[in-house]
């Protein structure tokens, strides 16, 4: 699903955010991306979202070489990725329902179809009864679940998450993680940036570690029975 080949991102002459990063993430896999702050996690996600272009190297996502993607095509590529943001970033002026519906509205889906998929997404995160509420009236954990519902509503093949448990207490964090794991079992490929090592240490997924822009380890892939 994701191929990074010797990707370097240089912001200025002396600042290399990513250096010679190579890794592959197969379909249906769930992986964590860790590293101290400033290690390049956000840059890597930005490259995947085409918000930034690499200085060197090649990125191929879902068989699309990003090199050949033109500016005008970027929105259509992004529609096939779900994104969960660190601060959730919901639109506070509209209801939970409208927040979750947003990607489908952008995609030009029919009203009936939007209705169906939004309900299904809210059902998956357990917030079906809160669709008419406004984000600010929800708890932090609930807001993050709305964010997840919004990310998965269009059934994107790839889900990217940037510190999805960043502002949550440990109990809520593991709740969110198990929700993501569930979605992964339904077939969604996931790359989750996080520095919550205690949490992901308990989970048996690949861990990609960035350090000062370099990929220190591309992790070990655990099989379902826990063996390396």
């Amino acid at each position, binding site marked *: 699903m994701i191929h990074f080949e010797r990707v370097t991102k240089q912001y200025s002459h002396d600042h290399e955010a990513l250096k010679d990063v190579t890794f592959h993430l197969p379909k249906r896999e769930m992986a964590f991306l860790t590293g101290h702050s400033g290690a390049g996690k956000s840059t890597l996600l930005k490259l995947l979202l085409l918000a930034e272009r690499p200085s060197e190297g090649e990125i191929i996502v*879902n068989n699309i070489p990003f090199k050949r993607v033109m500016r005008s095509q970027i929105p259509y590529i992004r529609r096939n990725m779900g994104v969960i943001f660190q601060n959730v970033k919901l639109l506070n002026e509209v209801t939970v329902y409208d927040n979750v519906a947003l990607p489908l509205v952008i995609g030009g889906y029919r009203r009936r*179809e939007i209705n169906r998929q939004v309900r299904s997404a809210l059902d998956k995160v357990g917030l079906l009864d809160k669709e008419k509420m406004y984000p600010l009236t929800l708890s932090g954990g609930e807001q993050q679940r709305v964010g997840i519902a919004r990310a998965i509503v269009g059934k994107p093949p790839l889900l990217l998450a940037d510190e999805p448990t960043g502002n949550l207490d440990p109990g809520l964090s593991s709740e969110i993680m198990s929700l993501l794991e569930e979605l992964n079992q339904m077939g969604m490929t996931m790359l989750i940036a996080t520095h919550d090592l205690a949490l992901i240490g308990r989970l048996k997924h690949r861990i990609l570690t960035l350090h000062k822009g370099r990929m220190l380890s591309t992790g070990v892939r655990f099989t379902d029975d826990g063996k390396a």
Partner: protein
Amino acid sequence: MMAKRNQPSAGVSSLRYSWLSQLFMGHARACFSSIVRLSRTPFATLLTMIVVGISLALPLGLFVLVQNAQMLSQQWNKGQQLSLFLRMDVSQSEVDEFLVKLQLDPQISSFQYITPDEALSEFQEAAGMKTLLESLPSNPLPGVVIVTPKENHSTPSMRRLVSRLKHDPQVDLVQFDYRWIERLLTIILLLKKFVWAFAMLLGVGVIMVIGNTIRLATENHRNELEIIRLMGATNAFIRRPLLYTGTIFGVLGGIIAWLCVDFMILWLQSTVTHLANLYSSHFHLDELGLFMALSMIMMGGGLGFLASYVVISRELRTMA
């Protein structure tokens, strides 16, 4: 994952709207959402609209006044006649010959000949100097031809006519105050230019006001716009509601300007009519025609659209 635009493949088409209805729905949604957003901050919206309205009303009001002044000057111009004072020593046959010549002149629409006797009796009546004039040995007044030219507006042709008549051997003096007319027309031209300059300046002002309002709106919602963008919204999708907002500001500002100017005319009207009556004229201020009003509103909308387009495009370039 496909990188093609608007792929209306058969399997997807039942889930999504067709390309055309997507466009239509997009516009309806953008228009609606911008109206909702504007109505959520009614005071700020009203303030912006009034500023835009006043900026448009000033040049519009001046334009209306200048147009009325021009019409007034045309009215005067139309009454403009030339007085040809014939030489004292012309014979009746020479006068007849001269009058025939005038009749054939293509630049003259009509004329009236006043014989020296008629002039004398008229003068006696008007001036009340009967006794004085009677005491004179002979009639001191020349024959006068009052000529109404065909063309009233163009001064050069008028001037040519005057100089042609002046060189006629029968004519002693041509009385025509074209200088005065010329001055008036030049003043009106100057005013018109002034109005245009003013209008352009204030038009730029309107663009700035609307542009700045839109810029503030995008700044306040920058996070939102970035999120929407990361979810695959096209530039057109993001731009649309803001373009509607800018256009709505412009259109409503145009309507306010129109109302302002119409009220101004209404307010001035009674005084102007009274003044005109004192000069025994039927002059009255013309109201803003429907055409002018509509073009004002459209111009407001156009300026609003332009302003918001420029601002959003700039903002979009700085976004991820």
